[in-house]
């Protein structure tokens, strides 16, 4: 019986490792290729993963073709600003929906939830037309304002409301009796007690903005304001199938997110599990 169980576990591990190789291989392959010489890439054995000799030339080339440091900086700023504003607005609204009484509250909440059902592509063209009318094309405003007001804001409202409902009321009641205004309660009691929820949304927001492509691709064609994903596709058009340069560039764009994922893994997972879409 015990031997059978041990065999069972050995088989399980073998399968798990095989699947893990498939899942990780594209990452390993692109990162190692980014350090290979073009000679090794084009005439060496593709299954040989060790760069020999290792070189930083591909990175130098990628950075000389297009301003990648600028793309990375733009994405870093966007992926910080957009979630910060979105989470602030969302937690204000969520506090109102969770704790304050007013006419039409539930109706407005339902109306907002409808936005989550709305596929983003329906509003792509009118948003673009609007951004053009406002003179936002090729401006940072186009990269910041419309992405804030999208389905993710509604998701954040929904998520924060669920969290606020789980905070015991006693915490606020004492402050309200002491004459604290709802704004004071929100800032001094509710928000400091919501740090894990805020962290979860910040991580999801960072990922979404870092990876966003379609919208920035339509509103920006100025290299100085371009975020990383759009910059990558411009590089692809420029160098076609020069895998050496492309792999250096994709590595530059993937690594920051992987590092963040490693550090904040549990918040990533919490995002899926508590989203209410986790199957409950």
């Amino acid at each position, binding site marked *: 019986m015990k031997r059978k169980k041990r065999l069972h576990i050995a088989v399980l591990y073998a399968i798990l490792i095989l699947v893990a190789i498939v899942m990780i291989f*594209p990452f390993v392959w692109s990162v190692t290729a980014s350090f290979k010489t073009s000679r090794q890439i084009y005439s060496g054995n593709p299954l040989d993963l060790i760069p020999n000799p290792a070189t930083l030339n591909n990175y130098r080339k990628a950075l000389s073709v297009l301003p990648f440091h600028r793309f990375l900086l733009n994405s870093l700023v966007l992926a910080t600003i957009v979630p910060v504003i979105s989470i602030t607005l969302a937690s204000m609204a969520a506090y109102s929906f969770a704790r304050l009484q007013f006419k039409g509250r539930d109706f407005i909440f339902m109306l907002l939830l409808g936005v989550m059902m709305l596929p983003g592509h*329906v509003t*792509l063209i009118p948003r673009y*037309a609007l951004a053009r009318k406002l003179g936002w094309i090729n401006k940072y405003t186009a990269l910041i304002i419309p992405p804030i*007001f999208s389905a993710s*804001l509604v998701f954040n409202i929904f998520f924060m409301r669920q969290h606020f409902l789980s905070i015991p009321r006693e915490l606020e009641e004492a402050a309200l009796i002491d004459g604290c205004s709802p704004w004071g309660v929100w800032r001094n009691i509710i928000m400091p007690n919501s740090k894990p929820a805020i962290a979860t949304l910040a991580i999801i927001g960072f990922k979404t903005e870092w990876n966003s492509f379609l919208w920035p691709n339509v509103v920006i064609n100025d290299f100085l304001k371009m975020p990383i994903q759009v910059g990558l596709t411009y590089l*692809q058009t420029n160098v076609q199938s020069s895998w050496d340069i492309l792999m250096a560039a994709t590595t530059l764009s993937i690594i920051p997110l992987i590092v963040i994922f490693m550090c904040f893994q549990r918040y*990533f997972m919490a995002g899926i*599990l508590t989203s209410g*879409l986790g199957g409950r």
Partner: protein
Amino acid sequence: MRSLDGSRRQVRQTLTAWSFILPSLIGLGIFVYGSLVYSLYISFTSWDLLTPAKWIGFANYARAFRDESFIQCLYNTVYFLVAIVPLGIVFAMAMAMALNRQLPGIGFFRAAYYMPSITSTIAIGMVWLWIFNPDQGVLNAILKLIGVSNLPRWLESRVWAKPALSIMRLWQVSGYYMIMYLSGLQNIPNELYEAAEIDGATGWQKTRYVTVPLLSNTTFFATIMLIIEVFNLFEAVYVMTEGRPGGSTNTILYYIYAQAFQRYRMGYASAMAWILFVILFVITLIQFAARRRKEEIGF
């Protein structure tokens, strides 16, 4: 006096409440609800952004159903639905079942399986473009190694382009749904398995008659989300195929994008966006209705 005080307090609270939600409401009102109405209007016009929009009624909608490229996109989407949704569910569920235990290194496996789903499709799509490259790519190098002659031309071939794209999407999204299933599995009470064991159930029977039925809620949501995901297939097509060869990997969203931002047919693109919206809405409604029906019968 007292009631006046009370009503004044009520007014104050209403004002405070509105001040909390107003910034979100105004922004969403303009950029989502306003856009939605605007989009419907655009879909009834002929508009190239430069000259004023001209009202043409339902002509854009009629055109879509005569447009062979659009019909081809619909057909391709059905193909991708069949290829990706069931396999995605099976992979995600299987991975979750394998990883739902306390073993050394399990955290590593969970992270590894989940990693593709947080990576940008644009960046990893370029890596897969190279993997699928018939002459320089690693996939054909492996196939050659294990003795496959007649190597597929993958993204260059009408036959293999769709399977290649499906493989890439399955690789990328399965881990996300795996996490959903993991949470579903953790909600199944242990007593049910103990009861099944007393009845002499084998491992397979436990999976078939306890685990899978109790995960039906997760499966329901995962299916809806995967279907929406397939309908919105865009970035992988953008970097890997641009709809080629011969439109065999063209998708609705890519076609909408190309019509709007490469040919400046804003009206036609908006009409197709609305058709896509209606299709998705109807599918979701049907799924919810089917689920209610199933619950009524008592499954």
